[in-house]
């Protein structure tokens, strides 16, 4: 089991995400969302699906104006900007990638959201004890945390969440009986060092052990398979521009990695789970009796 130290986590995140913002721009949507999209219709494109994903998460979190939102591993700031613009929250995003943090902060300035949103290059673990938030999202983070750190990860989030708060964890999981294989070894060696997606059962156990009450679980693996396939198409269409930024081997490594990921999601080797949780307190969580409000 690999050890996840702060320095190692920073190096791993930088290895994967600091390739260059322009490189990611060649295959991501205009919001630079590098996580599973949510395709509301068969004919939806990636742009629409990424927007729908952020709305899906915002509705599950029951975001309302003036609530405080912490987005852990905020990437290029897409959910922070979306939540501030469309749901009126005050958002704080943290990422371990300097390139992402700078890009996100600049985006916030362009959108004139500086009073509402703030993004930092910071380890989420450093926030514990400094503030509490109404809502917390962690989109595409848990796969970087590592099994050894899961208890501390959820304990930290528990401390950062207000008693009547909601926490949405959106992340990749592996099968419970998963074992390393040559394909996963190649991804580990060349693209995604220290990636360690936990099994759904492990995540739920950790949530329970850290005094969370699970409200809802949704599997979006079909959506992630399609998202990866869309990224492959976009990157292949932008091959010439890509080769101005990276060498041919890097380009080929990435189209293969994204294509393999699409297949792994399709074949049920990996999954994408959204898990909505609240703190375990002696009253009901801030969710309605039914889930109709998410789909209105």
């Amino acid at each position, binding site marked *: 089991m690999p050890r996840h130290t702060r320095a190692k986590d920073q190096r791993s995140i930088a290895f994967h995400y600091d390739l260059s913002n322009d490189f990611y721009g060649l295959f991501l949507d205009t919001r630079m969302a590098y996580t599973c999209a949510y395709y509301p219709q068969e004919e939806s494109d990636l742009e629409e699906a990424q927007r729908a994903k952020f709305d899906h998460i915002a509705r599950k979190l029951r975001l309302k104006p003036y609530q405080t939102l912490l987005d852990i591993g905020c990437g290029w700031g897409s959910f922070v900007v979306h939540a501030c613009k469309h749901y009126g929250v005050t958002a704080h995003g943290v990422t371990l990638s300097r390139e992402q943090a700078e890009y996100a902060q600049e985006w916030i300035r362009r959108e004139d959201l500086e009073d509402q949103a703030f993004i930092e290059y910071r380890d989420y673990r450093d926030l514990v004890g400094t503030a509490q938030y109404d809502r917390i999202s962690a989109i595409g983070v848990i796969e970087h945390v590592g099994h050894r750190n899961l208890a501390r990860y959820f304990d930290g989030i528990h401390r950062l969440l207000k008693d009547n708060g909601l926490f949405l964890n959106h992340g990749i999981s592996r099968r419970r009986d998963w074992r390393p294989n*040559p*394909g996963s070894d190649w991804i580990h060696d060349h693209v995604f060092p220290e990636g360690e997606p936990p099994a759904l059962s492990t995540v739920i156990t950790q949530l329970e052990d850290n005094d969370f009450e699970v409200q809802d679980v949704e599997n979006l693996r079909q959506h992630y398979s399609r998202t990866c396939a869309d990224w492959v198409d976009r990157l*292949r269409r932008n091959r010439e521009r890509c080769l101005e930024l990276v060498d*041919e081997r890097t380009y080929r490594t990435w*189209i*293969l990695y994204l294509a393999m990921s699409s297949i792994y999601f399709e074949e049920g080797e990996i999954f994408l789970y959204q898990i909505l949780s609240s703190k375990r307190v002696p009253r009901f969580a801030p969710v309605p009796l039914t889930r109709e409000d998410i789909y209105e």
Partner: protein
Amino acid sequence: MFYTAADVSPDADKVARRLGTIADILFRHARKDFNIRVGDRELRYTNHPRFVILFDSPRSVRRLLLRHNEYLAAEAFVDKRLDIEGDLIAGLKAKNALIERAPTLRLGEKIKILFNLLRI
């Protein structure tokens, strides 16, 4: 002359025919909606391929089939010894046809594959 279900070019080339024999055995139960190119040689199963599997040389075919392993195949793809033209994801899923086929190969078929692999 060996028989192969694919249209082989160059027609009289023995290596191309041997490659065809190997492909016929390995992809016996697979949907033939693809073609294969090995250097200048071509195995054509369809006029409207969903994808084309490309190997730079017969040597790469031999290495990948004798030491079949997803890690080595990924490295071969990055080095352009192996490539997919057309639908990349469908092309990569062709590995599943091989994985499903492997346990059903009879001894005679294995010997035939090995015999032909060593002579390409």
